[in-house]
Every structure is written in C-alpha cells, then in structure tokens.
C-alpha cells in the first residue's frame, strides 16, 4: 500500500509531482494569521514565502500620499512574496492578512533550494508568477474601465474562492480602501448586490447567497484571473 501524498491545502503546492510532495512537509510550518497581520514589508528582506491555505492575503502599494491600494489578492492558488521567484532579496510590496486563516510558511533558503534543484517546483512557481502578472495587468484595465458594482462583485467572488466558504468578514471601509473607492460607492454597490440576491451583508460579514448571480454581476476580469491561476496549476500549461 502506498503512503498517502502530503497535502497542505495550498492548491499550488498540492499540484506538485509526488517526488516534490514527499519532502514538502518538512519544509513548511503552518502559521495562523489574523486579519491585518503583516507578512512582508516593502523594502524588507524576504525571509520566507507564504502559501495560503485558507487565509487570504493582500498585496498593497502605498503612495507618497499614504493612500494604500490593493494590487493583488492571494489565496490558496498562489503565494507571497512572488519576487522570490526572481531571486530578489527584498520585498517590492507590503503584504498582510486580509481574512483570518492559515498559511504554509517556507523559509527563503528552502524555497531557493527547491527552485534550484526541482525543475517541476521551479516551473510551477514561474507559471504562477505569470498568472500573478496577468492578474495585475487585468486589474489595471479593470480599475480604469469597470464600474464599482462590477469591481465589488469581482472582489467578493475572488475572496469567496480563496477562503473556500461562502461567508467571511469584510467591512465596507476595508473594501473601499482596497479598491480605491469612496465608502459611499462601496455601500451603494453592496446594497445593489443585496437587492439582486447575490449577497447578504450584516455587521461587516458577507454571505454569498447566490454564487451565479454574483458571478454574473462581476466583470469579465473575475473569470479571466480565475482561469489564469487555474491554468498555472497544470504543469506545462
């Protein structure tokens, strides 16, 4: 009888070939993150790479004005800090926990060792980096062209995918900051989504009531980014 393959819950790592999975457990420490907890600071040394299991992390850019806008959301389909794939010693962005949950943490030394010795591991990480870049570019277009309602629906659908459950804590204010919108605009969008029957929103807790309605309300960027990350989980895609 063969031993069951290790599965940490991060879909990217779980997609690795058996030979990589067999030694993965020793390289990962499971960490519980709380909302707002920082994982990487801009300009700081990259000491570890986090592979979310059921936590959701935000990667943000802070302007000289202090305005902080989300430039990436990372869940179990990916990892932070993506700069590690490019052999960068320093984080180019700040990352913190958006939704409470667990990550599998790998030291940068072990990550670099795996990048250097496992062709499959390196290829998966690069494929995933490509999906991250694609998403960042897609969000640029999204932020310029799509109205608040579609962007909110996209954000909520992506967050639900990443936490793997239909209910999660997310305040209007946080959503407004992350999307670079006025809180009133987010409140209007959330009200509209409630009236459409897509979600319910009570005391900063979102419940996805009808997944289909929410996805139809979201802009095309939701599917484009989801499909890009899904493809990155297939070796050679």
């Amino acid at each position, binding site marked *: 009888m063969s031993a069951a393959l290790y599965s940490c819950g991060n879909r990217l790592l779980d997609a690795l070939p058996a030979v990589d999975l067999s030694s993965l457990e020793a390289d990962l420490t499971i960490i519980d993150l*709380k909302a*707002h*907890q*920082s994982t990487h600071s801009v300009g700081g040394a990259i000491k570890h790479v986090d592979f979310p299991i059921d936590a959701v992390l935000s990667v943000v850019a802070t302007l000289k*004005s202090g*305005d902080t806008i989300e430039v990436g959301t990372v869940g179990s389909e990916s990892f932070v800090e993506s700069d590690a794939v490019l052999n960068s010693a320093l984080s180019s962005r700040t990352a*913190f926990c958006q939704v409470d949950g667990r990550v599998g943490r790998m030291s940068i030394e072990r990550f670099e060792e795996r990048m250097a010795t496992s062709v499959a591991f390196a290829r998966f990480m690069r494929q995933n980096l490509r999906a991250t870049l694609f998403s960042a570019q897609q969000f640029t277009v999204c932020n310029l062209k799509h109205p608040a309602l579609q962007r909110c629906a996209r954000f909520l659908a992506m967050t639900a995918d990443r936490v793997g459950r239909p209910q999660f804590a997310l305040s209007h204010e*946080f959503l407004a900051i992350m999307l670079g919108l006025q*809180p009133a605009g987010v409140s209007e969008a959330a009200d509209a989504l409630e009236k459409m029957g897509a979600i319910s929103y009570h005391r900063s807790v979102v419940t996805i009531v009808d997944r289909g309605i929410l996805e139809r309300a979201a802009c095309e960027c939701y599917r484009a980014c989801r499909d890009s990350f899904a493809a990155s989980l297939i070796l050679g895609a």
Partner: protein
Amino acid sequence: MLPPRIRVEAGNSDARYSPEPSLETEMRRIVESIYGPPVRRLPGLDVGRAYWGATKEFRYGGDMVDVFQYGSGHTSLAVVDISGHGIRAARHAALAKYALRAYASRGLDALASIRALNRLCIENSTFENEYEFFATAFFAILDARRQTMQYVSAGHEAAYVITPVGPRMLGATGPIVGLMDDDDAFSQETVQLDRGDIFAAVTDGFTEARDAGQIFLGPEPLVDIIEQHRAFEAEQQAEAVTRYARDYAGERLQDDIAALVVKIDAKTAA
C-alpha cells in the same frame, strides 16, 4: 447612596428634584467633550480650531482635532479623520484622542505613538469583534525648548509649516492607521520651528471639496488662506480655512471639514 435624580444642595437639607437633562442632551455633551472646547492660547502657542459639519442635522463626524500640553514644554497636535460617522465614529475619535494623549504623556515619541495607536485600532476591533477602525492621522509633538516639531502623517494630506520664507508641506510618512500591523510602514520627520512660523492642517473635507465643475480644491489653497490672514489670530485663520472650502463647494460639500492652526507665538515662545 442617593438615587441619581435627587440632588442635595449645600445648606439645605431638603432633597429636591431638579430638572434632569434629557438623555439625548447628556449624550451630546459627552460626545462634544470628545471633540473638546476651543483652546485659544497656550504658553508659547496661539491655537485655533474650526469645524464645519457637511449636513444640516446634528451628526458626529469622524474628524477629530486635539491639542494637549503636557510635561515640561511639550505639546501634542492631532488631526485625525476617522472612517464613518455617528456614534461609532465618536467612540473611535475618543479612543484615538485619549490613546495618543496617553502615549505622548508617557514619553513616547510621535512615531511610537502612531505605531501604538495602529496596533490598538487593530487589536481593539478584533477583541470587540466590531466594525474595523481606519483613520488618517497627523500626529506631532512640539518641543518648546528645542523648538522642533516631530511628526508622523499616517496617510494624512494637507499639513504645512508656513514660514516667512515659504511653506513646507509635511507629506505622508506612512499608510492610514488600522489597515495593517506593520511598524515598518511608518516613519517620522522632524522640522525646526521658529517664532512666527505657522502650522496648519485640514482634513480631507477641505481638499476634496468640489466646485460646480467637480474640480477638487486640493491642499494648495491652504497656504494662501493662512498667508492672507497672517495678521489674524489662529482661531480666525482656522475659521477662514473652513469658510473658504464652504464657499468653494457651496451646497456640494459632502464631508465635514476640520482645521487646526497653531502659531508659534512671536511674543511668548521659549
């Protein structure tokens, strides 16, 4: 213990029922105490504050301005714009005001104070399982002996030191408070102050006031307003600042405006 509705007056053994303020009046007094009475003059400083509510009905906004003198020659200045309105914003304003006073009077510098407030905002929201608390905050500590102002601007735009040779914008030195628990995200700056210098700061109700053409007012007019009213007392200057934004936006004003002006007193500064 006497019931709370009965008051015994000195020299009179009769217990009398006195008119009790309504609960709403009491609540209003409590909340107004958070925003505080005007502080006109402190040793070495002429202080002016002004506040303009965007709505006609009585509503507690998220703008909080505080001036607190403590220790030997230290004064803290806080201009905080808290997300949301109503009693929730008032509670968070109280938390920010007294937390910053406590940190400063305990000897923490501006940077340590803002880092501590950031942590408190996050921990408090988590512990009480309540709405998140985000704020832009300008927090400074004036040292009369050294004639310096040490400051942190947590995502707060539009603060200036206006000197006889020109203005200096005090830009942001970190993100908003309450977003992420990352001490490294914040830093502090120190500026030298001289007699006759004027510090001025506003909340985003000023910078985001829009005219009929939807053009934002921005931070730049703040300096001109102060310069045009240089001869006036700080409170009149602060009122001129909020009045300018009201005139600019008219009925389109959507957010509260708070202004703080502090003149380094030419006559009494140490």
